[in-house]
């Protein structure tokens, strides 16, 4: 089921590669000791190095190297024990140095792979070409003055990882799945918070189109797309634009474009016309970065369990389906929450409560798993009450809603509201007798062959006992009495 664009001259397929800029989680910047905290007063987190004062020398932040290597390991990628820093030269108001320190010919991380899952349930491997470290630029603010742009350098010099994929993506959906999976891995590793709204993860999208079996045609790069949805939209509209050009006998120019979400189109980014000649050269202020295999191995041994491994383990440890396991591991906090409940309990029952009632309650109350009004321990306790027969599944829903509302523990709620399950067969028999007496006509119908009425009787008996009767006991007793 691949994505094709039907043109006048036949079907076109799309070829997409993504360059993701992921801001490294670190306290201070890549080459200076200024803070990286988001949202500070403009220009308050800028050192003389970040502002490119003459004579200032960069010193690399060890933690950023650790984070880049850990990310590489999480992407099953080759770690290069020697890498180098180069200057990428261009002029722009957000780049005080006049060059970005980046890694061009010798990145710290080489080829790797990410496995993505599509809505069809199919999985695909997308190749990673490389990951390198570089400096982020500052921020320009255009809406404060009619003739001036304001420059805030707080972000200038913050460490980025540029993660480049192979042109393996063939559908907008795959691009979305790739970004979600990459973000998941980064968040599990704690190397990038993956927050696209705050700009800590941004994507440049390379798009070209071709007829099946052809070599690659000219591609365009769409810069700085800041949401997964926009990436998917940008690919669609850009591919359609290119198909139209080719089909009208034109040539697609290799260029940098911007995605305008409001208009749903891409357009040329004029200022970058000359920018492809970056005149890279080795940064004379920085020696090659040399790391040891033993150090890399130690980082690898200390990596947390990543989403794919966790998913497989959840399936086998807790006997839950592939799909459910995928929902749980999408966020590490959800996976942890689930595991606290599921450990030593019925894993399937636990997943249905977490992804069903709990998610619904969080949605309704505008809370997240971190701020959940019901703790994992409390929900686990409630499952214990179901398991030991203190309450039945129906009453459990009521107890749960009460927990959401009051934050009280399930024991307290059951006691306070007298919700303990009725297992006294005398009480259940009495309830059945009462229901049968009230519905003599239905009893007759049932006995003359209308079996479907059984459900009706169960419902009435549960109602009679205010939902507290043990359903299995009710079933047995009811069957005996009706048939008898």
């Amino acid at each position, binding site marked *: 089921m691949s994505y094709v664009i039907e043109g006048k001259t036949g079907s076109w397929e799309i070829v997409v590669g993504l360059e993701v800029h992921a801001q490294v989680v670190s306290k*201070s910047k890549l080459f200076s000791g200024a803070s990286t905290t988001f949202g500070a007063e403009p220009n308050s987190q800028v050192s003389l190095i970040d502002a490119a004062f003459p004579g200032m020398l960069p010193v690399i932040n060890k933690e950023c190297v650790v984070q880049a290597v850990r990310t590489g390991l999480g992407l099953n990628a080759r770690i290069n024990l020697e890498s180098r820093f180069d200057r990428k030269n261009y002029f722009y108001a957000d780049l005080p140095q006049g060059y970005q320190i980046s890694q061009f010919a010798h990145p710290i991380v080489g080829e790797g792979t990410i496995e993505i899952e599509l809505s069809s349930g199919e999985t695909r491997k997308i190749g990673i070409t490389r990951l390198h470290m570089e400096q982020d630029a500052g921020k320009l603010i255009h809406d*404060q003055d009619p003739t001036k742009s304001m420059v805030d350098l707080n972000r200038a010099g913050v460490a980025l990882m540029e993660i480049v994929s192979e042109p393996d993506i063939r559908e907008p959906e795959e691009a979305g799945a790739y970004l979600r999976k990459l973000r998941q891995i980064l968040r599990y590793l704690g190397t990038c918070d993956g927050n696209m709204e705050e700009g800590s993860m941004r994507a440049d999208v390379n798009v070209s189109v071709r007829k099946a079996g052809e070599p690659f045609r000219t591609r365009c790069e769409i810069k700085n797309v800041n949401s997964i949805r926009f990436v998917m939209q940008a690919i669609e509209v850009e591919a359609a634009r290119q198909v139209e050009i080719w089909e009208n006998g034109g040539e697609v120019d290799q260029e940098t474009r911007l995605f305008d979400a409001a208009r749903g189109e891409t357009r040329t980014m004029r200022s970058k016309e000359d920018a492809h000649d970056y005149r890279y050269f080795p940064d004379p202020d920085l020696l090659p970065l040399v790391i040891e295999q033993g150090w890399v191995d130690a980082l690898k041994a200390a990596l947390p369990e990543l989403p794919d491994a966790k998913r497989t383990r959840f399936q086998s440890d807790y006997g839950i389906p592939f799909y459910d396991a995928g929902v749980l591991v999408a966020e590490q906090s959800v996976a942890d929450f689930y595991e606290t409940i599921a450990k030593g309990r019925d894993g399937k029952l636990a997943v249905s409560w977490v992804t069903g009632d709990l998610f619904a309650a969080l949605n309704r109350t505008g809370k997240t798993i971190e701020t959940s009004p019901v703790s994992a321990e409390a929900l686990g306790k409630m499952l214990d009450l179901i398991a030991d027969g203190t309450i039945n599944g129906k009453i459990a829903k009521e107890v749960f809603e009460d927990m959401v509302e009051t934050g009280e523990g399930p024991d307290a709620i059951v006691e306070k509201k007298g919700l303990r399950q009725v297992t006294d067969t005398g009480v259940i028999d009495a309830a059945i007798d009462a229901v049968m007496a009230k519905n003599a006509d239905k009893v007759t119908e049932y006995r003359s062959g209308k079996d479907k009425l059984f459900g009706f009787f169960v419902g009435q008996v549960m109602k009679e006992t205010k939902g507290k009767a043990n359903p299995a006991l009710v079933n047995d007793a009811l069957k005996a009495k009706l048939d008898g």
Partner: protein
Amino acid sequence: MSLDLATTRRIAKLARIGLEDAELETVRQKLDGILGWVDQLSEVDVEGVPPMVGTETEALRQRDDAVTDGNCRDAILSCAPEKSGPFYTVPKVVE
């Protein structure tokens, strides 16, 4: 190797250096001279010799991840050609 005028103009443009047409040939000759001088290096046979990245023998110095700098906005902005409040300002650049 000989540098042509078009390339000279392009290099100047990339470096944001404005050159009058009258100056162009002089600059071309000077640059060409520098390139020719450096190009003598290509006479050396380096077959099988690994590229040298510097004369330093020490490894790249690394620092701990701690906030030790910043919070010096006034000092930084004091050198700005143009500023407004907490910002540097530049002629409007909008895509």
